[in-house]
């Protein structure tokens, strides 16, 4: 078992090295808070480590778990009226700045759909809104992003 777990840990580190950077930015783009992003990604990988070799597709698992953990934290903060510190846009700017121009739900839908590959139904479950509303946010967010990115200053 220990050998299997060590193998699983090594495999998970490979996943982290391959996916961690992208995953962290995706969760940050969604949550808008570095602490939430770091905690969610670290927690997801820690849970995956705990499970050892029992996860069939570790990359897919930690992606889903990270977003769900971040969503839970955001929900907790809303419930207790904690402020979410909006992150400073990184350098270089560009798309990330444009994402900051979207509403939180629009940003979440765009990132989860176009970056993380979630279906509308799953996004609705994560964000706690109807699938139809996810579609509205996605369409509006996409149009707004297109306007920002393709505008004179884009």
């Amino acid at each position, binding site marked *: 078992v220990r050998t299997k777990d060590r193998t699983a*840990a090594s495999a998970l*580190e490979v996943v*982290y090295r391959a996916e*961690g*950077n*992208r995953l*962290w*930015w*995706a969760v940050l*783009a969604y949550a808008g808070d570095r602490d939430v992003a770091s905690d969610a*990604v*670290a*927690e997801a*990988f*820690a*849970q995956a*480590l*705990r*499970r050892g070799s029992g*996860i*069939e*597709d570790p990359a897919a*698992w930690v992606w*889903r*778990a990270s977003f*769900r*953990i971040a969503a839970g934290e955001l929900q907790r903060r809303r419930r207790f009226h904690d402020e979410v510190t909006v992150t400073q846009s990184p*350098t*270089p700017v*560009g*798309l*990330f700045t444009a994402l900051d121009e979207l*509403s939180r739900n*629009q940003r979440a839908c*765009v*990132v989860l*759909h*176009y*970056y993380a*590959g*979630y*279906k*509308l*139904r*799953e996004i609705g*479950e*994560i964000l706690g809104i*109807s*699938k*139809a*509303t996810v*579609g*509205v946010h*996605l*369409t*509006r967010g*996409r149009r707004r*992003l*297109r306007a920002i*990115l393709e505008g004179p200053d884009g």
Partner: protein
Amino acid sequence: MADLRTRLTDIESNPAPDLWPEIGTREPSRAPSPAPTRRFVAAVVGLAVAVTGIGFVVVTFVPTRSGDVGATSKGAILFETRASIDVPTSAVWSVDPDTGAVSPFFDLPQEGDESGIWSPDHRLIAITAEGGLDGPAVVIVHPDGSEVTQLLDGYCVTAHVSWVPDATALFFVGGRVIDGTCAEALWMVDVASGEATQIRDGWFSGVDVAPDGESILFAEAFQDGAATRSELWVSALDGSGARQLTSNGGYYASPEWSPDGRSIAVGWADFDRRLHSAIYVLDADGAHRRRLTDPQGADMGPVWSPDGRRIAFSSSRDHLGDPGGLSMYVMNADGTDEYRVVIGDEYAIATSWA
């Protein structure tokens, strides 16, 4: 939107903090979620069926490509599933519940999760694009896939759509888009004119027109303190004379009259165990509620067979720990002889049975 995907990918060129040292020593603070075992379960079930010779129809379904269109026919169950491996939105597929033959039926060009609803006379099918705003919210087609008309451009719809018996109108949960949000209510649209009329304001988790066309059955949700609840109601087609059928607490969703109008099948969950809803059948007046399925996961969206002898439904029981994954089952109307028809790689949601 390939450019957006490319630009999003560019984000990762910026360095993120190295969390691995923390991960290696971190004690998980939350209970680990179950592993995604759906493919393993599917393989085991498929092997068991093959070895034992059990005559169940079990289709392990993996969509192949987007843009597929085809035909469907009477007897088929239309179901919603992912359009293709590479496309996150869904399309309408068709399955013969007795042979397990699966085929793509319709895929709207715009984005949105699509459902197919047979008209009661089985001449037409309403394709709804839930979440899609770049075109009509409903497209009416023939069973051969040829288009009849487009409806509700600029509206949003959910999967809750029901025909009137003569197929001249559709009732639906949805509405206009206001300030970037789908302002959901209960609406009716005339198929010939395309004119939409709001029937009732509120928050609905299902609507179904009675087989005699005299009334509508709907599940209306409301806030009860911190809890969200939903109960069943019946009203005239214009929304008047609403009468509450149930007062069980919990959450009712996707009610559907039996073809003879004497029973109602519906998904219901205790609110505190909302992810473990089950399929129930009630008398038409809301009395004598019977649970038909064991809540191993979330069983939802019952769909009657045309002869009223069987009920198809969707279940998350094969996808525990994988939110969004659903398989399709069929059982007798008394809950016996349940068998799985489609186990989707992602999800398979029964929407209508001809």
